[in-house]
């Protein structure tokens, strides 16, 4: 093989790896805070990507309506939980965040979709819609189960994934879509050609990782999230609501997912079910990071991306198999290195 091909493959691998890194970080975050293994992470990716592509093509995406429907569901859940101690402020607040907000976003989406909005508007709307879906999903599907075991949460997670995938087919159809590049143009450096889109991917990934690092290291809410991950009871005794931490974790995960989708969809055609596989590769990275280590996850994601690029060049039929086989030695090593750990009791 010559150096040029190798460089190309590495470059391709790093571009994909950057996206897996973001997804892997989101998975680690959600698991650490809520103990949910977030299978629907992939759906956030497709929803973000296809909402963006639909809007850019001047079509009304169904996700806007889904956000409103889930918001109404979340409102009903809020009312039900507080049924014995209802007061006006609580109802008003829940109504604004769960119904008024998605309704406004839906109205904006309807307004803009008719007139092929510019790229930044499409991105902003897609992110907001998917973020709302993420937060309401947590309220409806995971918050009521927050005290149960990891297995129950995993089952709920699979259920949410299947439901969202089915709805994705309904909203976007079986055909794939591509979106406009966030940043067009390209330049060459030596043998390598950098497209504006791949530069965008690197820049956004790095910016997001730095932003997350600052968020967790410096802000009170970031620290509260870490605290919940370290010691749930301790956090509650400090007055930090587990549900608040869960909402923030899901908000971040859905925004990260949607953003990843928006970055991929100009490069690759995405279908309603493409997210699952993309999410799984982020999951491989997260597993290599033991579902706890953020830096290890990011590095592992780059390895996953590069292995994928090389295997699709040499053995494209087996590329998924090869990527997922990475898990076997890692799991073997981890199970040998780590003592038996019992599931944390709450």
């Amino acid at each position, binding site marked *: 093989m010559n150096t040029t091909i190798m460089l190309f493959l590495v470059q391709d691998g790093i571009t994909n790896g950057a996206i897996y890194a973001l997804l892997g970080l989101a998975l680690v975050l959600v698991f650490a805070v809520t103990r949910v293994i977030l299978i629907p992470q992939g759906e956030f990716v497709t929803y973000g990507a296809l909402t963006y592509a639909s809007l850019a093509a001047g079509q009304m995406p169904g996700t806007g309506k889904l956000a409103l429907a889930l918001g109404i569901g979340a409102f009903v859940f809020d009312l039900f939980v507080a049924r014995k101690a209802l007061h006006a402020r609580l109802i008003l607040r829940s109504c604004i965040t769960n119904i008024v907000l998605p309704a406004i976003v839906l109205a904006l989406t309807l307004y803009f979709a008719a007139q092929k909005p510019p790229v930044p508007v499409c991105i902003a709307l897609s992110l907001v819609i998917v973020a709302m879906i993420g937060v309401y999903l947590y309220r409806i599907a995971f918050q009521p189960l927050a005290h149960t075991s990891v297995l129950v949460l995993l089952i709920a997670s699979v259920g949410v994934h299947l439901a969202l995938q089915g709805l994705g087919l309904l909203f976007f159809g079986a055909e794939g879509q591509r979106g406009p590049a966030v940043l067009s143009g390209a330049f060459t450096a030596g043998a390598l050609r950098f497209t504006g889109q791949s530069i965008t991917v690197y820049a956004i990934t790095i910016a997001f990782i730095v932003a997350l690092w600052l968020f967790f290291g410096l802000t009170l809410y970031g620290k509260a999230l*870490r605290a919940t991950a370290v*010691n749930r009871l301790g956090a*509650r005794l400090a*007055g*930090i609501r587990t549900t608040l931490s869960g909402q923030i974790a899901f908000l971040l995960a859905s925004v990260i997912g949607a953003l990843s989708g928006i970055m991929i969809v100009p490069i690759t055609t995405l279908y309603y079910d493409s997210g699952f596989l993309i999410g799984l590769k982020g999951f491989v990275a997260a597993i290599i990071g033991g579902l706890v280590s953020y830096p290890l996850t990011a590095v592992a994601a780059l390895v996953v991306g590069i292995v994928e690029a090389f295997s699709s060049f040499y053995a494209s039929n087996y590329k998924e198999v090869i990527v997922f086989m990475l898990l076997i030695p890692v799991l073997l090593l981890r199970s040998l290195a780590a003592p038996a750990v019992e599931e944390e009791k709450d």
Partner: protein
Amino acid sequence: MSALLSVTDAHVAYGKVEAVRSVSLEVGTNEIVTIVGANGAGKTTLLSAIMGILPLKGRVAFAGQDLARLDIEDRVAMGLGLVPEHRELFVTMNVEDNLELGAFRIERSRAKSSIERVYALFPRLKERRKQLAGTLSGGEQQMLAMGRALMGEPKLLMLDEPSLGLAPIIVADIFRIITELRASGVSVLLVEQNAQAALKIADQAYVMELGEFVLSGKASDIAANERVAASYLGFQHEGESRI
């Protein structure tokens, strides 16, 4: 004036096993109340239930308000604090972050002055403020757990076995600080196996055996009670084994 905390006819059960039976107690403002009793008497269970960690049958009122429908977090916001037996620190975070999070529900400006107050109470914590909580010694962890709870500006601080496993000199320090808390207007509900030390600083005391209060009254009276002296204070009569 009504009591700050009043528990009436409380029952706490793990499944079918009742660990606390028909217990009533009161803690007034500026008061140290202690619950003494042997291991397994139900003291920790009772504190957990008052905090809302375990479900409780009966009535718990704090500052005149019924706590029945309130979560742990709401109780914290009302001014009820618990330092649990296992401390439940954020071990991978430093001392300062642990303290800062203790004031999660408090206004930022007030939290800044609270942290100075905690450092004044526990100078050791100030020295170690950039150290990870998990690397502190047992005594320092206990101080940090108390400091974190104080950051939430509690009106009543519940301490579960603060002296457990600590060196005598540190225990003395912690008991001294508990009396300082009372002087600064924080009431304390203290659960201790070290009955002697607890009864010395407490105003009121309850003796718990097998999930029930068998004795209550002024701490000095309880300390003078022969039966308590025999069972918990280590003053044995001839032929009896020392607990």
